[in-house]
Structure formats: structure tokens, C-alpha cells
């Protein structure tokens, strides 16, 4: 096997050193009644060319069509610099930086990542990342329950991504009597402020608001934060398209105490939904309750600047059952992609890219309205995605796909999506990747499919 260096001579030498005749003698540690009864029933191994051939077959049996799908996973033009950096084995094959003296590359990149996330979110501190946006929300809700001791209700806007809501429910299962109350949207697509206000109480730990929300709508996070403050709850901001934070007022500016986001849209491929990277930022006062890895700046014994993992006493390997989370690592390489991407975009470029996304999305919305009669369902301002409603969305959708364009995401196809009469909604997403030709194709197909 080409991955294994040991020749028969090496093996004999090692066995002789150990004082045994065969490797089997080492494996007698495993009692006979627990030993595998037969050889592993996997296919035979194969040379690299065969691995590539089979992988090629599988990958090309997928079809990649022009697409307007987003809904938490965004196609983006990413500079080759990002993949060049990620392909550096010094980053890719390093372990968690437990030995800081030989991990300054990873640690400094994490420190830069934390700085970017804090700046984007307008908050004081950020961690070195969590698994994804959905589990980041679950962790933020758990933080709010720890901070608001005894508070047991979480007010969850129906505008929060359905998958994020579902994951939060999973995390909360079996951990006390926490109740998640869904707050519906108003007819404009924002969290219904009246419903939210009526649900307030001194037992509310957190109010969770999608920003922008699942339907792309720029929700009124400021009002949610004000209402949260009124009842002593935390305001949690939840973002699945992180590019929006490059243009919109930051969650911190709008009063959020904790902001979470999926970072995939800042430098990672869509890659069938993973890996992603969870962004997590908070106000300084919650620092000790923040889950996950944190990197801090310090000095070495010669007074030189350096970085280490810090505040580890919050974590599972020290505090065990009383840790802030069971998470062991961050999403190192994915966070590095985000860091590199943000460095390339920079102060002006990120804003411009965000502006381009929103401008293009509005162009398409106008064309769909005027040329295909498909106006956005919600009237509130949106970032780069918007919902349309079509009669018999399943049929319409399939028709579009047959004509070679994926028009968006059928909301009814998502687990946990709100059954509020939205079964014919399709969420259309536009990024800088979508060309004018894509627009033409979608608009004409949408029109024909309506007629069909």
C-alpha cells in the first residue's frame, strides 16, 4: 500500500526490537471473543488513477446548471489566492495549535479572523469559529440561557433560517424545560413587532432575529434589540448571508448582544453545504460565556509579540461537564478561507461586492415582476434574495429545471419551514456569479413555465 512505508525488513526489525515474531502477537490484547470474525468487507484498494476515475464518474453524474439557489449557501467568485493559501500543507495538515511556538501561523490567522468577525458584527469579541451558522445559533441560545439564569423562553423569529431553528431545537432537547416560541412575520416580511411585544416577559432569555432573514428581508433588528432590553433578554442576530454585513448596519450597532452567522459566503465553495464555518461575536461582558476556541495576543520570553489559545478554562478539556460547550476545535481551515477572502476584499471591496449583490438582485426582481408578472412576496427592503410566489410551485419549478435553470429554492422543500401559507413560495438568490444571460434564461423560463 503506497501510504505505508514499512518494508518486510523494517517490520522484522521492529518486531525483533519488541521481542515478537508477528504483529498478531501484539493483537492478542484483544480477547478472542471480541476479535473480528472475518476480513473487512470493503472493496479492494486501488491506485490513484482509479480513485480519480471513480470520483470523476460520480462528480460528473451531478449536473451543474445556472442557478439562483442560496438560502444559506451562496455561490461566489473566489480568488485563486484563497485556494492557494488553503492548499498550503503547513496550514492544512497542522493540528490544533496546542504548541503555540510552532503554530504561530495558525494562531495569527485565527486572531485576524476574530478581529474581522468582531468588526463585521460591530461587537467587542469573537471566537475562532464554530461548526456552522446553525450550530452557532444553538450555542448563542445556550449562552443566553446561562446568562439569564432561570429564564426559560426563547422568542424565535420565523424569519430565522428554518434549518437553524431546527438545529437549535435539537440542541435544546433534553436540557431543561426551555421553550422556543415562534414569532411570525408581518405582511412585509419582517418579524411582527406586535406579536413580539406581546410575547415579552421576564422569563425570556433571548430574542432571535434573522438579519437579513431567511427571505432576504432586512429585518428590524433595532426594534427586536430594544424589546429584548426592555425585558432583560439578550438580542441575538442571525445571519446566513454574511456578505450582507459588509453593507448593512452592524448587529452591534443595532443593539444585538450576540451575533452569529454562517461564514461560507465569504470565501468557501458551496460544496453541497459543507464545510461551512460559524461566526460568533459578543459583547465583552459575555466573554466568559462564549463557547469555542479563543486566540489571544501575548508576548514570548524575549518580549516578542505572539499568539496563544486562551481562556481555556471555559472549555471541555478542563471544565469537563461544566464547560460552556462540548466543542473541541474551531473550523480552522474554513476560518482561514474567510480571513484570506476578507483580506482580498478589504475595506472598500467588501462593501462594493455587497452593493453589487444587492443591486443585481433588485435588477432581477424588477425584471421578474415586469416581464414575468412575478413580484416579490414581501415589500420590505431585501439584500440579495427575495421570495416570489407561483401557482403550483412544484410543477413550475420542475419546468424551469427542465429548461436548464434552477430558479431558486422551493421553501416547502425545507425541513421545518413555516407552514404559513407559503408552500408555493420560491426563494430566489442572486450573487455576483449570476450573469445577464442567466437572468435572461430565468426570466424567459419563468414566464413560459407560468403559461405552461
Amino acid at each position: 500500500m503506497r501510504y505505508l512505508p514499512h518494508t518486510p525488513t523494517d517490520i522484522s526489525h521492529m518486531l525483533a526490537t519488541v521481542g515478537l515474531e508477528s504483529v498478531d502477537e501484539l493483537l492478542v490484547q484483544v480477547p478472542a471473543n471480541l476479535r473480528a470474525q472475518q476480513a473487512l468487507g470493503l472493496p479492494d484498494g486501488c491506485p490513484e488513477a482509479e480513485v480519480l476515475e471513480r470520483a470523476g464518474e460520480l462528480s460528473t453524474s451531478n449536473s451543474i446548471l445556472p442557478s439562483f439557489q442560496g438560502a444559506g449557501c451562496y455561490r461566489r467568485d473566489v480568488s485563486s489566492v484563497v485556494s492557494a493559501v488553503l492548499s498550503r500543507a503547513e496550514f492544512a495538515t497542522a493540528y490544533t495549535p496546542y504548541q503555540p511556538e510552532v503554530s504561530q501561523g495558525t494562531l495569527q490567522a485565527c486572531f485576524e479572523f476574530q478581529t474581522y468577525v468582531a468588526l463585521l458584527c460591530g461587537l467587542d469579541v469573537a471566537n475562532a469559529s464554530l461548526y456552522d451558522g446553525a450550530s452557532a445559533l444553538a450555542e448563542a441560545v445556550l449562552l443566553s440561557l446561562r446568562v439569564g439564569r432561570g429564564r426559560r423562553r426563547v422568542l424565535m423569529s420565523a424569519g430565522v433560517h428554518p434549518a437553524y431553528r431546527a438545529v437549535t431545537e435539537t440542541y435544546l432537547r433534553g436540557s431543561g424545560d426551555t421553550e422556543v416560541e415562534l414569532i411570525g412575520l408581518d405582511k412585509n416580511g419582517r418579524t411582527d413587532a406586535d406579536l413580539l411585544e406581546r410575547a415579552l416577559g421576564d422569563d425570556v432569555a433571548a430574542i432571535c432575529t434573522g438579519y437579513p432573514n431567511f427571505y432576504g428581508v432586512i429585518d428590524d433588528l433595532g426594534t427586536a434589540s430594544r424589546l429584548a432590553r426592555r425585558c432583560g433578554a439578550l438580542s441575538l442576530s442571525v445571519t446566513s448571508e454574511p456578505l450582507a454585513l459588509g453593507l448593512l448596519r452592524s448587529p452591534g450597532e443595532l443593539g444585538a448582544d450576540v451575533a452569529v452567522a454562517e461564514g461560507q459566503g465569504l470565501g468557501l465553495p458551496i460544496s453541497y453545504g459543507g464545510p461551512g464555518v460559524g461566526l460568533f461575536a459578543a459583547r465583552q461582558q459575555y466573554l466568559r460565556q462564549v463557547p469555542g476556541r479563543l486566540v489571544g495576543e501575548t508576548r514570548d520570553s524575549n518580549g516578542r509579540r505572539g499568539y496563544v489559545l486562551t481562556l481555556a478554562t471555559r472549555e471541555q478539556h478542563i471544565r469537563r461537564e461544566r464547560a460552556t460547550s462540548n466543542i473541541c476545535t474551531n473550523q480552522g481551515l474554513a476560518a482561514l478561507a474567510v480571513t484570506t477572502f476578507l483580506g482580498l476584499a478589504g475595506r472598500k471591496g467588501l462593501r462594493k461586492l455587497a452593493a453589487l449583490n444587492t443591486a443585481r438582485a433588485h435588477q432581477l426582481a424588477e425584471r421578474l415582476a415586469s416581464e414575468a408578472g412575478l413580484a416579490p412576496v414581501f415589500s420590505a427592503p431585501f439584500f440579495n434574495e427575495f421570495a416570489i410566489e407561483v401557482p403550483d410551485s412544484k410543477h413550475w419549478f420542475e419546468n424551469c429545471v427542465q429548461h436548464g435553470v434552477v430558479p431558486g429554492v422551493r421553501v416547502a422543500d425545507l425541513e421545518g419551514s413555516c407552514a404559513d401559507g407559503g408552500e408555493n413560495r420560491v426563494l430566489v438568490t442572486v450573487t455576483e456569479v449570476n450573469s445577464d444571460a442567466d437572468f435572461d434564461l430565468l426570466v424567459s423560463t419563468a414566464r413560459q413555465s407560468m403559461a405552461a
Partner: protein
Amino acid sequence: MEFPDDVYYTTEHEWLRLEDDGLVVVGITDYAQEQLGDIVFIQLPDLSDVVLSKDEQLAEIESVKTVSEVYSPISGKVVKVNNDLADGPEVLNEDPYGYGWLVHMEPSDDDPTAGLMSADEYRDLVSEGG
């Protein structure tokens, strides 16, 4: 290692000092801070729920890679906490009997020092290996 005479000691390496106003000051001993190493953070009780029974958790002291709990040596009410420790946890290493105090408590028992050790007794305990 210091063992001042004006405080009482517990087997859990805490000290108590009786003040003139009937309050009790609580801290950890020089021996305790040395065992813990460089202290980086002290979690003190939240003054909104302050009535503790003896042996209930009073504080948490963190060094870089450990967390140690401090249990209340007496029953009573916490009336003041040392907020300066938030910005300067190193004070606990440098001056455990002085600026490194943890809390002031109003004892609920008449004799809060009953059963506690003198400096000499505590020195003997520590020299036997704690």
C-alpha cells in the same frame, strides 16, 4: 510562606478575618495561591443572590489550565465583593491576605470562627502536606 496571626484558617486553605463591625472578610491563603500558580480570573458571587450556607460554592478561581472552587467557610450573607480582582487577578498571587481578599460576609452564626484553625495549627497542617 506567610501565616499571619490575625486571621483564622480552614482546612480548605481559606482565611477569615473578623472586623470590628461584625463582618467577616474571606480570602484564600498564601499556600493556596502558591498551589494554584498564576491566577488569571476570579468569579465572585453575583450580589443579587448572596445568602450562602457553609460549604456552598462562593467563588471560582482560574489559573491558565485549572479551575478551582472556593466554598463558603461560613453560613451568611455576602455584602461586598472585591471588584478590583476583575482587572487585576494577579493581586491574589501577590497579596492574598490584603488586597487579594474575596468577599465580606455577614455571618448568620454567633461564632463564625468556631472550629477554625490558628496560624500555628494551619502552618502544621500545610507542612504535613496540606
